């Protein structure tokens, strides 16, 4: 996970705002607004490995 996390910290994710992304082997291999679609695609493209998943937050200020 450490390498994928390092990639995440350095990556420009502005084109994925509002989407879930999956990172495997230090690259973004899947992205979609739907979590399950992102995860399933990532499993297909990166078998036998565990992708790092995250939601790229929107421009809105986050309050809950």
């Amino acid at each position, binding site marked *: *996970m450490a390498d*994928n*996390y390092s990639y*995440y*910290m350095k990556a*420009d*994710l*502005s084109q994925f*705002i*509002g989407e879930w992304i999956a990172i495997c082997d230090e690259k973004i291999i899947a992205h979609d*607004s*739907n*979590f*399950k679609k992102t*995860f399933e695609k990532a499993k297909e493209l990166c078998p036998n490995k*565990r*992708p*790092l*998943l*995250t*939601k*790229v*937050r*929107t*421009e809105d200020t*986050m*309050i*809950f």
Partner: protein
Amino acid sequence: MVMQFKYKSLKHLDGHFVKTPSIPITFFGPSETLQIIAVVDSGADVSLMPREVAEVLGLKLDQNIEPAFGIAGEVQTAEDHVRVKIQKGHENYSFDITVKILLSKDTDIPVLIGRSEFFEEFEITFYEVKEKISLKKVHNRQ
């Protein structure tokens, strides 16, 4: 003893940056294990995750259904427990936390780590100017 994580900086289309205290966490569910970067939210009483993430993990969506309240309003939630692992370098810690599961579909929230249980495992310090978060393990808990 201390794990530090930098805030993630995200540049938006208008050029301004949003910085978020987020950390990588492994969630061990009955059906799946997921590595997810979650947002640490000191204002949230409990941890919260979208329904779709809980479904993939195999968590139960029919337990303790009740409304939860935030500034954004009232939402319907279920509740389950999940084992989490946080790791940085040679340090790694695993324990169970309670999670509220947001039952509405297609919500626009990330996985949020709230105070209950998680914040009892660490002394957590937010360094807003330095843009980092520090987690120091508390060892007097079982």
